[in-house]
């Protein structure tokens, strides 16, 4: 796919401010007190509404986020990223938002890129846009094993979903209705279900996916949520999805009204 029609200069995007009214930035957060204030502030100054879904944190993340002016939904127990995201999707649908941009709470995503993801949704009439670390120049630092795993997952999506997503485990994504509504109804909660599996199933069910190159920072604090053990789990998941099919219900996209 090509990104040639993605506006990248700020001037080209200035006129899009009105589009941002229907956009909600959802930040799933679990024990991220060191970073959450910066992330909320950054998203706010980029001009987006911001919802922090506190995933049962015990370090006061929710209070910090609320003090920074974010809307906060507090899950009473830790559900994992998938559960936190589905809560965010439901909140977005309930409050009339048509687009959700998912941003990690650890500060590795650059809020300036949110508008690029949203612009790609509109300009290429896509249902989901993934912010990719590799689509650009591949300089993002990553261990060899992790990079290999990501390549395999990407290969699976290309073969099975017929779409090129170079960074399927990226947690930086924009999702628009009708896919948003479908994800609000059912979304996988297990590890990597929220990233890899959601991308794969959406592609298979006829939703239009794309990716946009983004720069990512090193984690600003907290601990990495995905270690080697987790990646092994991810590979197992990829195998089970291919063997047993999907683990959540996603209605096929209604292609009659797909092209505006």
């Amino acid at each position, binding site marked *: 796919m090509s990104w040639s029609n993605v506006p990248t200069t700020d001037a080209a995007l200035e006129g899009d401010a009105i589009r941002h009214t229907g956009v909600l930035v959802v930040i799933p957060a679990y024990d991220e007190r060191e970073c959450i204030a910066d992330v909320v502030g950054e998203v706010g100054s980029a001009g987006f509404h911001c919802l922090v*879904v506190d995933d049962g944190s015990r370090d006061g993340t929710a209070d910090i986020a609320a003090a920074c002016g974010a*809307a*906060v*939904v*507090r*899950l*009473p*127990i830790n*559900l994992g990223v998938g*559960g936190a995201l*589905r*809560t965010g999707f*439901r*909140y977005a649908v*309930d409050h009339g938002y048509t687009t959700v941009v998912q941003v990690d709470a650890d500060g590795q995503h650059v809020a300036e890129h949110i508008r690029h993801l949203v612009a790609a949704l509109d300009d290429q009439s896509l249902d989901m846009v993934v912010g990719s670390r590799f689509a650009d120049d591949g300089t993002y630092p990553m261990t060899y094993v992790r990079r290999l795993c990501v390549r395999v997952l990407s290969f699976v999506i290309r073969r099975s979903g017929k779409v090129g997503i170079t960074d399927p485990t990226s947690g930086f994504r924009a999702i628009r209705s009708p896919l948003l509504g479908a994800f609000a109804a059912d979304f996988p*909660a297990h590890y990597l279900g929220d990233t890899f599996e959601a991308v794969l199933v959406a592609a298979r069910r006829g939703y239009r996916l794309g990716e946009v190159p983004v720069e990512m920072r090193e984690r600003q604090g907290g601990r990495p949520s995905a270690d080697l053990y987790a990646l092994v789990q991810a590979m197992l998941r990829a195998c089970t999805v291919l063997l047993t099919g999907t683990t959540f219900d996603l209605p096929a996209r209604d292609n009659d009204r797909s092209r505006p």
Partner: protein
Amino acid sequence: MSTTAKQALVLLLGGIVIGGFILRLARKRLLSTRYAIGWLVIGGLVAIAAILMPFVGRLGRLANMTPTAVLLTMSSVLLLAISVQLSISVSLLQERLRTTAEAHALLARRLDELEQRADH
């Protein structure tokens, strides 16, 4: 006393112990009635297996197995079935817990919004 009779006696005692233990757990409300009944049925099955030891012996001869092997095989299959059933229950409960937690969080947020609006 023959080996089979000894085995039957042990099984019978085992069944009674299981039954007593389950009843005690149920009375302390550590076990819900549904599972208590399930385990009592299993205790009953063990007791019945004890009574049917001669029959199990004949069954074993048909399959060229000792009565002990027949009983062990049967109990392994039973335990496997129970574990799978419990795993299914736990998965279902996790899904329900997740849905409930999400609804709880969204409702709490909604309440906050409404309270803030009422204050102004």
